[in-house]
């Protein structure tokens, strides 16, 4: 509980479910139900967002620990409890989730025509699961929310997706599920060893070095798939292409962050020796992701696939940042995650705008859109440049911080990571040129309409936040500064006190 004893976090987490109950109680013919479901979902998500702004205001950034902590005993005899709280690392992801959900609902206002009620239900349940994942302070509760995300997302891709939606939904589900069952085993191992699943306690628990090694790999299996890292990234382009626009937005904006959040929250502080020992491996995977997926993105024919690959590249940069273990790298990773959450969500919305009009996201079907859609062209330009890290936008801050962090570790690491940024400019501008510039020769594009007021209402907040983050990043980074500094210091201290992990000792037991 916070000072007032008011369970604010639980309210933010579970209020969407109340919205679900409201939507379920709607009666009437199909049109009434659809319209009421839209409004009920929008209002619920807006109220949730408003409540989460209270979190933002009341949060004390100078305190590196967990705040707004609520704890209800659930199974005390097994060291399990419902415990939630946020610290500087998680609070902004809670806000990201609550901010993107109303935008998603707004963006699918007209395009979703069948089973509107179920669609809105799925998004509200998804919101509960996302917020819960970032708030959970009990490992089993975390796992429940982390896994619970799969059910609504599977249905969103499977029911409202594109032509190959079934294949993509299965691939998404099975990939993610395969990774997270290993996470479950790791959680059970930690739980069995320490007798508690309380995350704040575990953050200060020292596990045996060899055990850390194995648990690191179990965590890696889950978070790498979720992130996704090369070579287990193949589900992401498929899922993005087939998912409805709002599904892609949540997938890129929030779900991918869960993997990186897992590394930051669990792998680095709980397994310091193992994460230090395997940092080179993570760097290698990160660099491969950045360079390889950037090249793959260059060759894409489909806008959504291209942006999906660019997401993987950006997440590679986040991986590099996390495993530098220094303040700049960690801050850069967090900033990059947040920025990518906004920018990639906006890019998918941009693609969605075209998809709503033309029902395709194939690049070759478009050209010269600037003639008919000047506002759209400007917004698309803005987010493309934010994605490649133009100074003054949010993307720049994160990339620069990660580069500084990486330079402290190894020059070549920073250099190779930087190559990805150059390639990023190449594929984004190449995409932009093909879609927006050129001459408008295609007949079916002659009467395409520019953004409607509803669409502008969706994009305006995203533009503002992107600029705000780029121009005055401190108003975001001061939230996590204390937590990140503490994490970096603690990590260094743990390493000093614990012997390093020898790879051989993991095998020879």
């Amino acid at each position, binding site marked *: 509980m916070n000072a007032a004893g008011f369970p604010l976090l639980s309210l933010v987490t579970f209020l969407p479910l109340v919205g679900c109950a409201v939507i379920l109680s709607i009666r009437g013919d199909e049109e009434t139900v659809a319209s009421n479901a839209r409004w009920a979902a929008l209002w619920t998500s807006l109220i949730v967002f408003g409540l989460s702004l209270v979190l933002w205001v009341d949060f004390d950034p100078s305190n590196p620990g967990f705040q707004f902590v609520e704890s209800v005993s*659930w199974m005390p005899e097994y060291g399990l409890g419902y415990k939630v709280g946020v610290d500087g690392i998680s609070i902004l992801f809670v806000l990201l989730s609550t901010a993107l959900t109303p935008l998603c609902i707004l963006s699918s206002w007209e395009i979703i025509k069948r089973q509107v009620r179920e669609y809105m239900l799925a998004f509200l349940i998804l919101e509960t699961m996302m917020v819960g994942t970032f708030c959970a302070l009990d490992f089993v509760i975390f796992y429940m929310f982390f896994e619970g995300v799969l059910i609504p997302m599977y*249905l969103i891709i499977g029911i409202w997706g594109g032509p190959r939606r079934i294949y993509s*939904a299965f691939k998404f589900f099975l990939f993610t*599920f395969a990774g997270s*069952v290993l996470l*479950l*085993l790791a959680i*059970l191992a930690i*739980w*069995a060893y320490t007798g508690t699943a309380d995350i704040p306690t575990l953050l200060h628990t020292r596990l045996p070095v060899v055990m850390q090694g194995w648990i690191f790999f179990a965590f890696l299996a889950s978070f790498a798939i979720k992130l996704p890292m090369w070579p287990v990234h193949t589900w992401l382009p498929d899922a993005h292409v087939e998912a409805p626009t709002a599904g892609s937005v949540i997938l890129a904006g929030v779900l991918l962050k869960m993997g990186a959040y897992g590394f930051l929250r669990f792998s680095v502080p709980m397994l310091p020796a193992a994460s230090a020992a395997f940092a080179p491996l993570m760097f290698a995977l990160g660099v491969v992701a950045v360079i390889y997926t950037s090249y793959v993105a260059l060759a894409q024919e489909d806008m959504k696939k291209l942006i999906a690959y660019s997401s993987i590249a950006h997440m590679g940069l986040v991986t590099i940042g996390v495993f530098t273990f220094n303040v700049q790298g960690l801050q850069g990773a967090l900033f990059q995650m947040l920025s990518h959450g906004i920018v990639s969500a906006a890019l998918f919305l941009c693609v969605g705008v075209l998809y709503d009009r033309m029902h395709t996201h194939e690049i070759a079907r478009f050209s010269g859109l600037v003639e008919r859609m000047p506002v759209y062209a400007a917004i698309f330009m803005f987010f493309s440049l934010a994605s490649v890290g133009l100074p003054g936008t949010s993307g720049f801050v994160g990339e620069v911080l990660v580069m500084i962090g990486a330079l402290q570790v190894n020059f070549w690491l920073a250099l190779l990571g930087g190559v990805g940024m150059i390639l990023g400019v190449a594929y984004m501008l190449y995409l932009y040129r093909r879609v927006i510039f050129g001459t408008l020769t295609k007949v079916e594009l002659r009467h395409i309409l520019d953004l409607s007021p509803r669409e502008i209402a969706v994009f305006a907040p995203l533009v503002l936040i992107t600029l705000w983050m780029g121009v005055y990043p401190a108003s975001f980074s001061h939230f996590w500064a204390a937590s990140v500094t503490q994490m970096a210091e603690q990590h260094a201290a743990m390493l000093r006190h614990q012997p390093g992990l020898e790879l051989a000792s993991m095998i020879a037991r």
Partner: protein
Amino acid sequence: MNWSLALPEIVLSLVAMAILIFGVLARRDASFACNMLALGAMLLTAFLVLATPSGSAYGGLFVVDAFSRYTKLLVLAASALALMVSLDYNRAQGLARFEFPILILFVVVGMMVMVSAANLMTLYLGLELHSLALYVLAAFDRDTLRSSEAGLKYFVLGALASGLLLYGISLVYGFAGSTGFAGLAQALSAPQGASVGLVVGVVFVIAGLVFKVSAVPFHMWTPDVYEGAPTPVTALLSTAPKVAAMALILRTMATPFGHLADNWRLLVELISIASMILGAVAAIGQTNIKRLMAYSSIGHMGYVLVGLAAGSAEGLRGVLIYLVVYVFMNIGTFACIIAMRRQGRALEQISDLAGLARTDPGLALAFAIFMFSMAGIPPLSGFFGKLYIFLAAVQAGMWVLAVIGVLTSVVGAYYYIRIVKVMYIDDSVGAFDTKPAMISLVAAGTGLFTTFFFLFPGPFVGAAQAAAQVLLG
């Protein structure tokens, strides 16, 4: 001699026979009255089970303790639910005969004796009583070829398993000199260890018992019998006897053969691994939902055996929790399957479910909840079953079992979510007939239990803990 410890069993058998007499003598069709009387008898028995004190009776043949109470209540609940879903099905299929509830009552008596057995002979008697009644139930739709075939197949293979079991019992008796669990435990605790003949005997006993829970390699009968038997009988077959037989295995392995754990553990591990893998892989190709559920139950029994292989109090606790969770989601699934009926004809193909989310959203939601729960997705109850089982495996350091277990659950998830896909994504092939109120009631009740189990796991975990403690002394 404290005969009143067996009061629930005695009362239930007497009531069953009274209902039989009533059914025979009644002038008009008495099936509905018999069904209601049978449900009432089970309810009464449940109270008696709760009221019976712990203790040992009939010269150590019969034992009542927290473990037997826990499993008896579960068996009664499963059987009562199965009987409830059978009412409308039997009427629609022309199977509404008064023998049906009576046979179920005898199955229940047999299972309760099994659960309370403290002697290999009691064990065998209980097992045979419940098996014989089940053979008849499997063939209850006697005018159809498939049902008769199912009954016969079940009978022949069941008789073989009984033979194995009896042979094992005789070997154990010959080498250890006792059939009582207490006497066996004492004889086997001797430092010289187990003789080869005794170990062979134990292996035969395990084989005979594992047949009942249809774990690999004694699973061959399961898909055919599940498919052929009337659906409510399949619902019963896949829940209550599994619980009773698993309880029997737990008691036998933990009490008399507990000292031989090092000898049988590897066997249980292998059976468990094989069941998990087969249950996950073989179900993928199924098109008949009842066959799919058969393979699914084989897989679930594999997970349950992980808890036994762990051999710890946590493992046994995990088994008992898993069984509760399993019974409710399984009965719920079968309630949904029984609701699959179009123009009066019962349907069994997975493809018949296409588009159910649009024609009957409530049923589709319940079905989806059961499927996600069986796949082990939190926060549904199936997740907690797996959680406690794998926690025990991890605590016992059985990493191979744990890793294989979680990976097979990923494979299993494929076919569970495929059913969700068929219901939610595929185009509708027409609405089902209006489902009977009883089916809706059972599906809703078990669905709510499965969904909200996470809010109140405490009582179940506590009761399972107490029951597991009894076995390990």
